[in-house]
């Protein structure tokens, strides 16, 4: 048995260290930059409170996956057809968690929790709000044009466009399906991945209070912003119970591919409104949702490898993401203005911007901008209608994209 000398041992340890890897291997510097970027996102989540519930686990997943020799995530295991045996035998913790994303389990479970927390009463009381929820989805489809112009593949275009839905789980759901396999139907390898889409989606969702108000002030007059809307009619408990059942059936009959998201959203809402499964409701909106949020965030963060993030493609995704949000806000407002005219000035156009989903932030922005003009104007409940309609609308838009492109 040969015992190495002190200097040889020290050199050996050094050569096998992460520090040596970072500064000598070809992708070492890229990993280092990714680690620094993960710090930036952690700062945004912790200090600036940018969607911290998901951005923090995503940022930490980004850190873990880019640490040298950590070997916690192996993207090659998910290229093409998944071999579950390989994932179980060769995969690490994050590979196993990522199965929940890859198999479309986590986003619908998040929707279950969201359903438990959503009150569809304002939407039932004023069903016309659905129109504003639909109008704001124009941001998704118009951004598709921009993505195609930048030369993205059809699957990438769909994944980028869905950022405009302002709904993180939906964006992850769609991009996971569309970007699976690593190669487009056209034979072109994908330049982006789920992590990139999730990062852009959650960053912009956090920036809704920054992006929306200038557009809202620009596209509406003071007279329009000061419109006080009539009180909503009371909605009976029976109506609230019937709503999730009816919506699930209607959406399934029209856009079956949207059923996993809408169905789980409505199941959660039925838990809430039925009032007979308090334990399930509590679990779905607290424990289950929290657990799934951790798993989803960390495993999506793990997919953010340097090759995908440190490329001009990521900057293009960021640009198109903000365009999608802006267009969605603008089309919602413009449709609100149409309703303002058609209803004889009974609808405040500001509630239109809430149609982009991002519950309940977008509705709060409508309330905030409205109260700037008239502090006694309470638009929140009126804006919640288009806001929750936007959730259903973006899920339907997701189903349509999956149907056309997937």
């Amino acid at each position, binding site marked *: 048995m040969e015992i190495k000398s002190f200097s040889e041992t020290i050199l050996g340890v050094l050569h096998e260290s992460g520090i040596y890897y970072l500064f000598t291997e070809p992708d070492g510097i890229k990993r280092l930059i990714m680690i620094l970027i993960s710090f930036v996102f952690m700062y945004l989540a912790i200090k600036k409170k940018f969607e911290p519930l998901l951005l923090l686990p995503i940022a930490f997943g980004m850190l873990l996956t880019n640490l040298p020799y950590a070997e916690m995530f192996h993207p090659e295991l998910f290229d093409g057809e998944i071999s579950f045996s390989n994932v179980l035998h060769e995969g690490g913790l994050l590979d196993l968690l990522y199965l929940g994303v890859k198999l479309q389990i986590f986003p619908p479970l998040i929707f279950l929790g969201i359903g438990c927390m959503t009150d569809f009463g304002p*939407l*039932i*009381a004023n*069903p*016309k709000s*659905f*129109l504003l*929820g*639909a109008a704001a*989805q*124009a941001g*998704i*489809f*118009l951004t*598709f*044009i921009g993505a*195609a*112009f*930048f*030369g*993205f*593949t*059809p699957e990438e*275009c*769909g994944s980028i466009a869905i950022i405009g839905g302002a709904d993180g789980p939906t964006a992850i759901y769609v991009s996971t399906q569309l970007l699976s396999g690593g190669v*487009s139907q*056209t034979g*072109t390898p994908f330049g982006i991945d789920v992590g990139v889409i999730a990062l852009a989606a959650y960053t912009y969702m956090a920036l809704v209070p920054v992006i929306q108000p200038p557009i809202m002030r620009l596209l509406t007059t003071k007279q329009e912003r000061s419109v006080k809307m009539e*009180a909503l*009619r*009371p*909605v*009976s*408990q*029976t*109506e609230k119970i*019937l*709503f999730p059942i*009816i*919506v699930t059936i*209607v*959406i399934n009959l*029209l*856009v079956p591919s949207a059923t996993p998201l809408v169905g789980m959203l409505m199941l959660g809402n039925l838990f809430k409104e039925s009032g007979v499964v308090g334990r399930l409701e509590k679990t779905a909106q607290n424990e289950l949702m929290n657990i799934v949020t951790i798993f989803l965030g960390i495993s999506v963060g793990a997919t953010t490898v340097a090759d995908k993030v440190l490329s001009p493609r990521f900057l293009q995704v960021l640009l198109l993401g903000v365009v999608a949000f802006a267009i969605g806000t603008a089309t919602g407002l413009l449709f609100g203005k149409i309703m303002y005219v058609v209803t004889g000035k009974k609808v405040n156009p500001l509630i239109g911007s809430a149609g982009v989903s991002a519950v*309940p932030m977008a509705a*709060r922005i409508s*309330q905030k901008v409205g109260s700037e003009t008239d502090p*006694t104007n*309470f638009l*929140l*409940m009126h804006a919640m209608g288009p806001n929750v*309609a936007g959730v*259903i*609308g973006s899920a*339907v*838009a997701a189903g*349509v*994209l999956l149907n*056309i*492109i997937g």
Partner: protein
Amino acid sequence: MDMLLTWGEVFTVVLTGLVIVFAALIILIAVVWTYGKIFTAVNKNKQDKQKPGQTQTADSPTSTQTSQSETSVQADTSGIPQSVIAAITAAVAAFTDGKGVVTGIAVKKPRKTGKRRSTEWGYAGTVASMKRTGW
């Protein structure tokens, strides 16, 4: 920049997407509006049937006495701090332009009425609550 999709394909996706999303949500409007109307009519019928009984209660002199100029509520105030009564009185006075007078407050067993909430107070409370909880 080389486009991998033709403009025709792009516009097909955009048009199809917008048409389907609008169609789906318009159908939902029709469905929700229809059953909303049905439920409103059913509830109205129920209220109409209950009205005679309610009138009898309202006419009872022990409950609430209302005149055009003044709103007065008389009830048992035992166990309720004076500061609470003062705060409620101030709120009622503000809401009724000084015409309302609270002479007493009674605590009844809380129950869901299913009736419309007061709008402005309710909305203000909801906004404050959402801000406080960070929702």
